[in-house]
């Protein structure tokens, strides 16, 4: 075995081992503590868990790409909300209403285009101004949220389209529509990251930007495309979620960015860029969702969930550093 393989294996496998541990713990603890007499590893429960992972999971895939690239996007929650407002409101426009129930397909297009446009704006600013993505998207988080409020004031935007609701609640081969979206996005992003030039470039730029520039990679347009992808995914997440619920509050999606970053970091992606994997991010998303549902299952309340997730995040960071740093840092400063 080549040197380093063991620690790589440990890091790759850690999130899945953690998930297995969670499942075992909640199954056993559930026997004694659960308020319901259903087992935790119940089939329906697991299906629901996958479905509920979808909204955050879809965006987390884009966040992985952005973070591997060495950037960060704090505005995804606001893009999510704006896309949702456009999705639901556009179906009430006169020409859309005239088209009947199938107008929702066009509404999806509008919402997704809005997401891509907002992402493009972020990416363009990061490219042209040279300001750190953290600051650009922190500003955008406020600005886009302002746009959501300006669109419809402080009122919720609601529209129910039953064709759409039926579609969103459908189950195909046992899995919910939302789960399928998550799986397709995961597969698509895996392909993008591992089998395309764009994906290779994302790693190269995140690892060493200077070297990537010297190798002739056009860093600016590359980053802009990444922000368009995450904008698209944030909008897609809204499309999946609000097709079913049919009502959005202007405050929806707040702090989503923090949950998503938590999931991505749990999956082992580095904030400094250059390393991370889509499959591990899926693991991170599932781990958080299992934790939330599991703690719920054994009768713990929200406060415990927040506490535990925060502590786990810090513990993961600590363990990860111990695994990475050992032997590499000749000079400890």
């Amino acid at each position, binding site marked *: 075995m080549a040197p380093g393989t063991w620690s790589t294996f440990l890091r790759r496998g850690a999130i899945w081992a953690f998930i297995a541990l969670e499942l075992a713990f909640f199954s056993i603890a559930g026997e004694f503590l659960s308020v319901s007499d259903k087992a935790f590893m119940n089939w329906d429960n697991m299906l629901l868990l996958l479905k509920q992972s979808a909204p955050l999971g879809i965006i987390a895939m884009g966040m992985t790409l952005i973070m591997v690239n060495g950037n960060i996007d*704090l505005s995804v929650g606001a893009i999510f909300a704006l896309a949702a407002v456009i999705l639901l409101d556009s179906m009430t426009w006169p020409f859309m209403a005239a088209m009947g129930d199938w107008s929702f397909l066009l509404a999806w297009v509008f919402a997704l285009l809005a997401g891509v446009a907002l992402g493009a704006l972020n990416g363009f600013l990061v490219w042209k101004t040279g300001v750190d993505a953290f600051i650009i998207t922190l500003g955008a988080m406020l600005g886009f949220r302002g746009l959501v409020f300006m669109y419809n004031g402080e009122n919720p935007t609601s529209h129910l389209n039953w064709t759409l609701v039926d579609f969103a609640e459908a189950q195909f081969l046992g899995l919910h529509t939302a789960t399928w979206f998550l799986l397709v996005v995961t597969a698509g992003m895996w392909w993008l990251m591992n089998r395309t030039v764009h994906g290779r470039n994302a790693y190269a730029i995140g690892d060493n930007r200077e070297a990537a520039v010297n190798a002739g990679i056009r860093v600016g347009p590359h980053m802009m495309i990444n922000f368009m992808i995450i904008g698209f995914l944030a909008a897609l997440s809204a499309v999946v979620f609000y097709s079913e619920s049919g009502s959005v509050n202007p405050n929806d999606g707040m702090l989503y960015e923090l949950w998503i970053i938590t999931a991505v970091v749990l999956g082992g992606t580095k904030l400094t860029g250059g390393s991370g994997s889509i499959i591990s991010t899926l693991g991170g998303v599932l781990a958080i969702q299992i934790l939330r549902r599991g703690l719920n299952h054994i009768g713990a309340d929200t406060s415990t969930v927040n506490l535990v997730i*925060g502590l786990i995040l810090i513990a993961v960071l600590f363990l990860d550093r111990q695994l990475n740093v050992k032997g590499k840092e000749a000079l400890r*400063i």
Partner: protein
Amino acid sequence: MSEAAQERSARNAGGSSGAKVGTFLAKQGILIAFVLFMVSFALASERFLDPDNILGVIRSSAILGVMALGVTFVVISGNLDLSVGSLMSFSTIVVLDLHDTLGPALAILAMFGMTLAIGAVIGFLVGYLRLNSLIVTLGMLSAIHGLTLTWSGGQNMDIADKAGTWFAVFGQGRALGIPMPILMFALLAAVLGIVLAKTPFGRKVYAVGGNGTAATFSGIRRARTVFTCYLISAFCVATAGLIQASRSMGSQNTVGQGMELEVLAAVILGGASLMGGSGTIFKTVIGVLILGFIQNGLLLIGLQFYVQFVVTWIIIILAVWLDIAAKRGRLLSPIA
């Protein structure tokens, strides 16, 4: 381009007089923008320059401002603190809850002790264990929120006997005709401004943030400096929590939610670099006041509160962009 090369090119660019004006504009841009805003709002609304209005704006900015003072230290030392909003909720809830059992004085002491202890934990993780501050404080944001909910049992906290206590003095009282929150904000800003600009510790904070390795080789104890910055931040948060609790005499669990990013926006607006090593208390105060006055001005000319989000977005990006543009001597980024 390395930092040094950037500075050199900025200095070269300063050779021509046009560029000099540009550099001056970018360096003092935040002050100029502040004056421009004040003048245009004053022209648009008569009430804007009314002393009562001005005092009111500063008073309501004081809570955000006090937190921004501490975060300035953390940011200059090259780190981030995303947990301040969550920690502020915690200190508000704790002091309100303990007030009825321990009495005001002891409750305040206990609250400061607990908030500082949490700050010390963060400082230990970031300073001594050298974990990434963004993730640590993100984790703490969640964990402290959990603590707050556990403490309060998810209930709102209220002081039972609102009339029979002097606790309201910090949020609602006045001294010399000036509201107490403003006095506390001003006092803390003055003290921390002097600490940052005039003491050896302040110089160390800049050194650690500017170039941590070089600072270590010059014998500065980096871990201890970062640790102290987080303690200062926690102290400021406790003060903000005290003002908040005393002003409303009751609170929800989520009173500080989302403030971490607003605070950061104010600090960045003041020109502190997220890379560390630059920023001043004075400019942070200007950043806080700009946010406060924009909010107030937009309301006075009849716009909804959320318009300020969009305006803040534009201002933050413009401010940081111009700052960077002046340093590199050209407007657009050289990235291909």
